[in-house]
Each structure stands twice: as C-alpha cells, then as structure tokens.
C-alpha cells in the first residue's frame, strides 16, 4: 500500500526504481568505532532479506540508515527510490519497524500505544487497532498497561504496531531475542504472511535457525562490512560446489572407509555419523555398496543440505583466513 501523498520527490538519479532498498558504500562511525564500513546492499521488492552477523556487526545501524533515522557519513542510501535523509517522512510512512527493544510506552495501555502509532502515521479514527492486535493474539490485553506485559506480549504488541499502517517494507531488528517459542512463531509467521502479500522484509538476526527457510537473500555482516551475500542456494553452491551426503552406521568406525572411495572429495566424521563430499551424486550407490562390503551396518544415507549455520561458520572461517576473500 502506498500512503497518501507519497512519494513527494523524484527517484534519485541513476537509482533503479525496482530496488526497494539500495545502500552503496555506506560508512558510519561512532567516535572511534566503525559501525558500517562501506556497506552495499540491494533489496528487491517482495523479497525477504536476512542480515546475519554477530553483535556489533552493524545490523542495527543498517536498519537505522534505511529509515533515515541515522544519516550516512559516506555513501548513498535509497529507499523506494528516495533519499531517506531528504524524504524521511515519505520513506518512514512506508516502513514498519520492530526494534530489538520493544520501544513501547510502559505507562500507557496496549491500545494507547497502538493509537499513538496510528495517529503519527495519520491513519485516523478508522485505524485497524483491534484487528492488528488480534492478528498477534494480543487483543485481550489491549486495555492493560504495557508495563505489566511479558516480553512475548510486548513483542507481539510491537509487531501489531509495526504492521498497523500496512507498510510496504518491514524491518525487523533481532525480533525474536528472548522470546518464548509461541511469540517467535508469531514473528516468523508474520514474515511469511508479509512475503506472501508481496511485501518486502529485512530481518536482522544472529539466530541462524530462525532465518532458515525464510530468506530469499542472505547478507552476512562483520565489522560493518558485507562478507558475502546472495540467495541461500547461491551461497551453498559457492561454499559447497560438490554434493554432500550424510551417512550413519551402527559401527561408525566402518564409515572411515568412505574416505578412500572413488569420487570422494571430502570426508568428515561428526556426532551424527559422517558427511561425505562426492564429485557427483551418481557415485552414491557405489559408495554405499563399498561401505556395506567393508562391514558397515548403515542406518542412514541422505543428501546433506548445508544449514545456514554451517554456511555462516564456513564464511566466517574463510574470512578469518588471512588474505582470503570469502
């Protein structure tokens, strides 16, 4: 939904209109600390982008740049083709933000918190306050003071507030930190729903499991720089160019025979058996036959899909190697 009156200015020169978010060489320091160090980022419309990185990687600063809450010292930021430091109001009207801290007014009721947001976004008396609260199962507590809410209730209210004005771009900064499973699920469900509605989502997290299966694009940040970015499939293909197979047996030591089998490029024992890298999946039947021949009592042979966590650590390991680009 485009809010009334937006946008007021023309798209920035040279900015493709189809990128919802575009950061080019953005740098921002706080005193001696470099929060963002030449970060570049593209977010296509209707996609879910996950910014991964440890604490202090620059994820929150990136979100603040996107809404224009913080101006960059160097580089350019364009959101919906607008410069948020110039057209901040028009950009922010189309953004919904859930911060790491719920940023709610504890002395006010849940209803008053939503009403405040509705009025700031110019929604008028027909603002869907109850409906938005009901969407996250917090409608029964709307009349209570937020100071008495649990962490999960606060996050759900913050989610209701973020989507109250039906934003085109949803920015989630560590939205599931410290949440119970039910509230975490509400966050992930929202992301799914937003993506299904064709909205654009940018989520910062250092919890890799929650990003699994959600992301169209993964951007890994470290020390304010993007170490690597791309779709999960692209990144997996880049870091694991050959297929891998997870195998397990009752007698795991017998699996070691796989290391010398034809077509095996890598072999690694782990707590669940072993991961075998082969040059082609067509090698697997022969591999299995070979293992059985040496007495392995196989329990499991499955294609191994690297998780985001494995990807994350693979990128970090490679980035730590001196002189090697991830």
């Amino acid at each position, binding site marked *: 939904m485009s809010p009334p009156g937006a946008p007021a200015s023309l798209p920035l020169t040279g900015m493709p209109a189809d990128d919802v978010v575009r950061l080019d060489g953005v740098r921002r320091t*706080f*005193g001696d*600390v470099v929060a963002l160090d030449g970060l570049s980022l593209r977010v296509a419309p209707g996609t879910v982008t996950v910014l991964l990185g440890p604490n202090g990687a620059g994820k929150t600063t990136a979100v*603040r740049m996107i*809404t*224009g*809450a*913080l101006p960059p010292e160097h580089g350019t930021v364009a959101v919906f083709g607008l410069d948020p430091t110039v057209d*901040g*109001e028009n950009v*922010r*009207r189309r*953004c919904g*933000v859930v*911060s790491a*801290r*719920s*940023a*709610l*007014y*504890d*002395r*006010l009721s849940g209803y*008053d918190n939503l009403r*405040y*947001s509705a*009025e*700031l*976004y*110019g929604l008028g008396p027909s603002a869907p306050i109850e409906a938005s609260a009901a969407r996250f199962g917090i409608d029964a507590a709307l009349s209570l*003071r937020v100071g008495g809410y649990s962490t999960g209730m606060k996050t759900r209210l913050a989610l209701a*507030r973020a989507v109250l004005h039906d934003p085109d771009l949803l*920015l989630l900064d560590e939205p599931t930190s410290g949440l119970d499973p039910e509230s975490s699920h509400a966050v992930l469900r929202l992301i799914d729903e937003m993506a299904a509605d064709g909205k654009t989502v940018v989520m910062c997290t250092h919890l890799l499991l929650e990003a699994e299966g959600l992301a169209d694009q993964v951007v890994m940040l470290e020390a304010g720089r993007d170490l690597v970015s791309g779709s999960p499939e692209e990144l997996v293909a880049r870091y694991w160019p050959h297929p891998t197979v997870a195998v397990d047996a009752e007698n795991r030591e017998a699996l070691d025979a796989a290391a010398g089998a034809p077509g095996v490029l890598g072999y690694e024992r782990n707590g669940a058996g072993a991961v075998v890298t082969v040059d082609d999946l067509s090698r697997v039947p022969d591999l299995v036959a070979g293992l059985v021949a040496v007495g392995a009592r196989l329990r499991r042979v499955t294609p191994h899909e690297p998780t985001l966590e494995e990807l994350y650590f693979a990128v970090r390991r490679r980035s730590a190697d001196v002189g090697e680009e991830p």
Partner: protein
Amino acid sequence: MNRRRILTVARTDLRQLRQSPDFWVPMMILAGFFFVVAPAVLLSLITAAETSPAIQRVATAVDVLPSAARAAVEGKTSDAAGQTSYALAVYLFAPLAVIVPMTISTAVGANTLVGEKERGTGEFLAHSPASDRELYLGKLIASLVPGYLTTMVGFGVYSLIVNLIVGPRVGGWFFPTSEWWVLMVWVVPPFLALTLSVVLRLSARVKSSAAAQQASGLVTLPLIMVSYAQSSGFIFGTTASGIGIGLLVWVAAAVGLARGARAVTRPRLLGIDGRL
C-alpha cells in the same frame, strides 16, 4: 509541518504524565503549599490577630514598598492588619505564580526527551514519520501545559482565598489586580517558554534523566531568579512596564525556541550523539 502530529505527541506525553502519580502528586503538593496553604494560613493569622506585636512588626513591611504600591495599599484601608494582609496578598505571593509553574514545567521538560532515550521509545519516534520539528514542538507543548495549567488553576484558587480572607478588611473583592492579569497572561508564558527552550536542549543532549534534572536545575535556577525579580518589579511598577517586560521575554523565548528546535535530532533520540 503537520499540526495534528504535533498535538498527538503532546497529548501522548500528557497522557503518560497523568498516568504517573509519582510525578504529579509531589507537584500538586508543591503548588498547593504555595497557592493555598501558605497564603491561607498567613493571611488568616494576620487578619485574626491584628493587635499582636508580631503582626505590628510585619505591618512595618508596608513601609518598604515603592511609593506607588504603598499608596495603593494605604488607599484600601486605614487599619494596619488590613493593609498588611493586602500588601502580602498582592505583592509578596505574586511572584510565586512564576516560580511554581516554572518548577513544574522544568521537571516535565527535563525528562521528556532523555526519557525517550532511556526507555528505548526514542527508537520508535526516530523511525516514525514525525519530523524532528514536530517532535520538538509536541514535547514543548507537553511541558508547557502542566506549568501553565498550574498557573491558571493556582491563580484562580489563590484569588478565591485572598478575596475571602482579606476582602472583608479592604472593602470587598480586590484581586486580581490589572497587573496580575498582565503577569499571568502576558509575562508568565514567555518565561515558561524561555526556560523550556533551555531545558529541552539539555534533555536532548544528556544521557540520563538524573543528569537532565541536575543540569536543568543549574541552568534554569538563574532564569527562575530573573523571572522572579522581573515579576516582583513589575508588580510594583505599572501595567505598561509589565507589557514591556513581557515583550522582551517573548523575543528571547522565540530565539531560544528556534535554537532549541535544532537540538532535537533523530540520532539523539536514539541515544547517539556522535558517540556510541
């Protein structure tokens, strides 16, 4: 600039204030003491015990008033207790009408921006469509209203008390005088605005509410003293001098507010001021 958004910010801040009895109860006690208890007790004692030697000594205070004020007092009644209570009602307690609201507005204003930082709600405002200027004006209104409301309500109650206690001794209702009207309507508001322009700038810059209270106390105390002195002098002077003083303070307030508006920025709402 969106006027509705400014009022939304102000209204929400005032709503939070209303929900905070730990803040407004002490302020009510302060206002009640200066506007009700102190004048009621003192004026009742004076009017009831006119022959006491202590009252006679207080009556000599009339002699130190400027000649115009002394003439006004002596024109009201010839008895010493009546003159003393009239002088106290009109000239002693008047400047309190400036100090009490300024104290209240300063307390509200000192917390208003730094409080957003401390609670983390500055993040919400920083990502909202409201402009820095709209946020500033909303916060300013929210800080001005409690102070000015206190002035008007306190002034009304005070008028009732002094007229009921002193009125019978000086030939009927005498309060408010024309100087008082000018003070309340024309002089107090710009003093409030001027003080808040300083307080809000401090509130935007400091890191904690405690620091804001300390710093604003330090900076606004001289301003309160100046406003007290000006108000006292004006009460002893003429209506025209009050209008002149008010005009000067309005100009100073306008300059202060324009400068103060620049102090409210989104990085500061986020608790970032060039440093982490």
